[in-house]
């Protein structure tokens, strides 16, 4: 009789605990979707910096559905980009993903109230035991290739200071007198005025690569890799983004997800700057998609 009472009470208690925020933070959700992305083998050079090349657009595309990130606060309250088209090719040395999506505005500006468009491709570091596809799990990192429109613009020479405040006026540094070269000692002092630059923060616009290689092991354990090998480029045209993200298939870097086995998993995330998508406020795939790498 006693067991009959205790068991349902215990079940209810466990169910209630499972719904608490503490429990949800510890939950690891691994979802493998039935869809797959096939990377077709194609010998020779790949058009890694030309997202509108016919090579891409003539490939068969997989339409991948995205949903708002709703696991970790801050969550994405309103959906933005509903789906992306994904294409992939490899030449044995490089594997490239071509991602295309509809976006009415090209958002690349960097300002207190402006957010950038972006897209990322993610792989599990251990394909035999994939972690949570969104930002990895404790001790089970993911390898993330992040392309952001503002980083590309900065790399192409855009100054967000000049872009946003064309009529600004400020004192020039006494070390940067017009017509005089800056000595190395003074250059260090100027750098010291920008703590993020002085400390080598890898996201500083202009210094960051167009595609950043990142490892994530849960939401607040994010490290930007020492070795940045990825390439890519994005082009916005007639209300659509066309972005290529590429990485070497085989690398000696233990922080890179292994792809030499010919198969793995892949996931995607997308940010719409016009809707203030940034950081965890993003659209994500519902789970991992199988990745087949043609040889």
């Amino acid at each position, binding site marked *: 009789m006693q067991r009959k009472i205790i068991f349902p009470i215990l079940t209810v208690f466990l169910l209630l605990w499972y719904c608490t925020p503490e429990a949800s933070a510890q939950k690891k959700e691994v979802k493998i979707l039935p869809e797959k992305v096939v990377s077709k083998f194609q010998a020779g050079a790949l058009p890694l910096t030309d997202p509108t090349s016919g090579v891409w657009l003539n490939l068969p595309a997989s339409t991948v559905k995205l949903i708002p990130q709703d696991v970790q606060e801050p969550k994405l309250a309103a959906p933005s980009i509903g789906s992306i088209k994904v294409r992939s090719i490899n030449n044995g040395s490089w594997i490239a993903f071509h991602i295309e999506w509809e976006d009415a505005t090209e958002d690349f500006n960097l300002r207190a*109230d402006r957010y950038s468009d972006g897209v990322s491709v993610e792989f599990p570091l251990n394909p035999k035991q994939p972690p949570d596809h969104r930002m990895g799990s404790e001790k089970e990192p993911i390898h993330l290739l992040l392309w952001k429109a*503002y980083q590309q613009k900065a790399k192409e020479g855009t100054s967000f200071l000049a872009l*946003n405040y064309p009529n600004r006026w400020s004192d020039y540094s006494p070390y940067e007198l017009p017509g005089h070269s800056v000595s190395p000692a003074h250059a260090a002092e100027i750098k010291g005025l920008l703590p993020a630059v002085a400390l080598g923060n890898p996201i500083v616009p202009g210094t960051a690569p167009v595609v950043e290689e990142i490892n994530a092991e849960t939401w607040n354990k994010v490290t930007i890799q020492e070795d940045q090998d990825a390439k890519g480029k994005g082009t916005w045209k007639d209300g659509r983004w066309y972005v290529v993200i590429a990485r070497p298939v085989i690398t000696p870097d233990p922080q890179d997800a292994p792809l030499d086995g010919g198969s793995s998993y892949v996931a995607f995330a997308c940010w719409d700057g016009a809707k203030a998508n940034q950081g965890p406020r993003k659209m994500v795939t519902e789970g991992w998609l199988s990745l087949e790498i043609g040889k």
Partner: protein
Amino acid sequence: MSHEVFNWQINRKMTYWYPEHRPGRQFAGVFDINKCIACQTCSLACKTTWTSGKGQELMFWNNVETKPWGGYPTAWDVNILSRLGPQKWGADEYEGATVFEAAPKGERVLQYQPEDGDWCNVNLGEDECSGIIEKGTHLKLPHAVWFFYLQRICNHCTYPACLAACPRGAIYKRPEDGVVLIDQKNCHGHRECMKACPYKRVFFNVVTGTSEKCIACYPSLESGKCNRCFETCIGKIRLQGWISTPEKAREDNPVDFLVHIRKVALPLYPQFGTEPNVYYIPPKQADPVFLRQMFGPGVDKAIATYKNAKNDPELLGLLLLQGSSDRVIERFRVKDGTAIGYTAKGAEIVRVPLKEPLHVRPYKDVALDVFRHNVT
């Protein structure tokens, strides 16, 4: 994640993203609003020390704004208060919701995003008084119209909303002094901190792509010296020190004395729930309803105590010690008409008389055979 923590400023438990973890000691400041003339020496001292780099053009980690109309960024207080909505103070505790408890589903903190232009008008509303001065108006008490200056730096809150909101864990509170810092090496520029801080004390740098904020001049702090904005205040309105929780308050600790013993200095918008560590001696002549919203229900008593300072030698002495040294006064005592400031180890820093000695000279200077213009 949601944890239950105790906030003494609202005298109740509340929810916060992380568990309660108070630092070994907590940096704090007391600003006497009544003494401020808005000369902006503090703002410029901070500006030239910390934010003269590229991308920091619109940043004032310290600013002085005119209330009721001024605000930097524009209308920061109106924006967050209107989102929080009408809330209620009970007899002993705050009964309303804090910015953590009022957070919508999927958010860590109730927040809003200022527009870029809001950072462009640092002294908007300067010296604008609360209402129209009618023809024939003459000075009377209480004042028919009023304004006062509000000096603002980061509050280095015990429960910082910026720290709670950072999705990358790039903000931390130093265990040795409670100073809240953004790790410039690991900030990813998501700006969640900027949106979450109800006081809007986090700024975005378009050159580095990171968020930046007041660092409480921690290099000075570490050597027992006052912060730049405290040290350079020509009105001597600022007192820097360390605050204890109420049950550990010491009578000889200047900040404890003003906040916990005499209760003459109050936190700004304690209802937000962040337990800010900058305290204000409220202005004597402003609308009490406005002041109760800003500083909580203790404001009327605080003003009465402040007005009575002339009969309270300890309070008067401490108010005179305020701003009298560039070193942090950690202990004080008033004896034989003199207020003396000490370090925590008891070394004397400074002494000031409660009454300046008065010497009156004769009108006629006999030696020079002239009359003096000034005899005191």
